[in-house]
């Protein structure tokens, strides 16, 4: 029998506690940079959690998920630009715009399969990208700055970095909870059934298309909320947040963390952003004994390492970080049993 408390559970618990206590660490050390970095991680983790719902559980390989980040962000920024600063208006509007876009994109693209689906979702994201570049009133290619963050009256002040971090964290936990409840519900079971064998599910009488579309819209909406958060985080939106390589980053997070697992995307976002942040230092550190003069310069070429690393992960570690933890749990199982 599998022990109730495995190594994997311990790591996940440590992660959640760590994320919750991070502002305490920042307050003690005064390391404001970590707070900014982790706010970004938490927001992108939320986007990855939403993508995981359709990619991991639904088997829908959407290559345009960054479009919802952009749509949510732009809705917030445009409303702010037009003088509407209230978060109670901005955020629901961001959700509604993303949901509507996901409904249209989903209804059209879910008719196709395989590579065609990958490409059509990509095409719609590119449309959103060019739409944003073309809006001269809202900055076009240069993007648009937010005057102020979304206001919530006396309820909370998002310009306080710690408050904002906790808002993002609570929303991340809420999304994970939502995905957990969804995937264990009848709806989620059908969605996973359709992923495994669509013909069979249709034969039993489930309308596969409608289930897929519902999942697609939920994921898009959730990612739109992450978009509204990221616009508040950077106080800036630009078309580049919808470029197709951004969608690629989100897919990397999901797969790196472990597809179709509850906490995988969080690990993935954490790992990718940590690599982005610390791989340059690490490379400099390794190169230093060999070539002290070129060490700092070598760190600049960190993507030379990250690229092949992704390929290696794809080839040899399909389960991602979560799979690795599960494997370790099996090995350590007996020792950790309470």
């Amino acid at each position, binding site marked *: 029998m599998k022990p109730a408390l495995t190594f994997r559970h311990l790591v996940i618990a440590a992660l959640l506690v760590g994320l919750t206590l991070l502002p305490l660490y920042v307050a003690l050390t005064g390391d404001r940079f970590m707070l900014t970095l982790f706010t970004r991680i938490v927001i992108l983790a939320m986007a990855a959690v939403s993508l995981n719902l359709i*990619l991991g559980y639904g088997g829908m*390989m959407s*290559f345009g998920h960054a479009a919802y980040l952009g749509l949510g962000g732009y809705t917030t920024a445009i409303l702010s630009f037009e003088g509407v600063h209230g978060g109670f208006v901005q955020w629901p509007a961001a959700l509604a715009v993303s949901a509507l876009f996901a409904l249209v994109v989903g209804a*059209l*693209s879910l*008719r*196709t*399969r*395989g*590579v*065609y689906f*990958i*490409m*059509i979702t*990509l*095409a*719609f994201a*590119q*449309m959103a990208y*060019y*739409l944003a*570049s*073309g*809006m*001269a*009133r809202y900055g076009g290619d240069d993007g648009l700055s937010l005057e102020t963050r979304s206001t919530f009256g006396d309820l909370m002040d998002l310009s306080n970095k710690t408050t904002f971090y906790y808002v993002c964290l609570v929303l991340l936990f809420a999304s994970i909870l939502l995905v957990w409840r969804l995937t264990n519900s009848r709806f989620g079971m059908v969605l996973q059934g359709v992923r495994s064998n669509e013909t069979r599910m249709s034969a039993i009488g489930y309308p596969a298309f409608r289930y897929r579309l519902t999942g697609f819209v939920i994921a898009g909406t959730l990612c739109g909320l992450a978009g509204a958060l990221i616009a508040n985080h950077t106080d800036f939106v630009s078309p580049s947040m919808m470029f*197709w*390589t951004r969608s*690629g980053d989100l*897919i*990397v997070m999901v*797969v790196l963390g472990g*597809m179709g697992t509850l906490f995988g995307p969080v690990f993935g976002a954490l790992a990718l952003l940590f690599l982005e942040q610390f791989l340059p230092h690490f490379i400099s550190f390794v190169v230093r004994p060999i070539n002290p003069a070129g060490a700092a310069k070598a760190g600049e*070429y*960190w*993507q*030379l390492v*990250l*690229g*092949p*690393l*992704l*390929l290696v*992960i*794809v*080839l040899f570690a399909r389960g991602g970080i979560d799979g690795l933890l599960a494997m370790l749990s099996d090995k350590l199982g007996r020792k950790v049993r309470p």
Partner: protein
Amino acid sequence: MTLFIEQCLNGLQFGLLLFLLAAGLTLVFGIMDLVNLAHGSLYMLGAYFAATFAAWTGSFVLGAVLAILATLLVGMALEVIAMRRLYGRDHLDHVLGTFGLILFFDELVRLIWGPGGLSLPVPPWLDRSIEILPGIQYSAYRFAIIVVTLAVAAFLYVLVMRTRVGMLIRAGASNREMVGALGVNIKLLYTLVFGLGAALAGLAGMIQAPILTVQIGMGENILILAFVITVIGGIGSIRGAFVAALLVGFIDTLGRAFFPQILVELLGRQAGSTAAPALSSMMIYILMAVILVVKPQGLFAANSR
């Protein structure tokens, strides 16, 4: 009228150029069932090689030939080292793995050639305009592109439809396992096909080098266009890629040239000039969405998979 004919020629030239990229992509797609995002990196490498070799040898043509050979070699090496291991896995793995390769190649180019772009001047003997129709002047370089790409398209047609290798390629596109079972050295065939695709991408990059600046990330925009073409044309179909490439080339070029005026006429100056840039960039993607909604397998589906 002169402007219209000139823009039509530009559309033809752009379409044929896109065909070079899409042909390689659709071959690799159709035969190895591999989604290769790194195809744009090979295009970028072709441009960098051409600029470098042309500067070394002092000859544009020699530089071009060397650049194509170099991308062919890089392509074949890439297939043997990395791509081969991705065959038979699902498309998500392809997307991720080759996405990693894009990062790698972008960074490699930055390491070798530095972050600033290169430029490849148009050779003097092509740097003028010629009178192609009575009263219509056209850039000699662009005209040369049309001639060269048409020749390559004809070569591809003969190669695929009239030779033994082409027969194997077509057979591979419709049933890979069967071709392997019949005793064809499928590994070698794959390496050759991938190399051919890489060389075509390199040629496209080399051709674009004098028109655009040679820079990091230049492959990323055009890659998506090439994918759009592959998908519109139907995966694995070279004929489909040809038709779709011309379609996309014309629509994109003519759209950018004339669509803003039409919109201004329709919507009035203010609204028209605001909406035009976004809409003309989006047109190709709208076209693709419409085609896929009507025909989910593309215009000329080569295989039923």
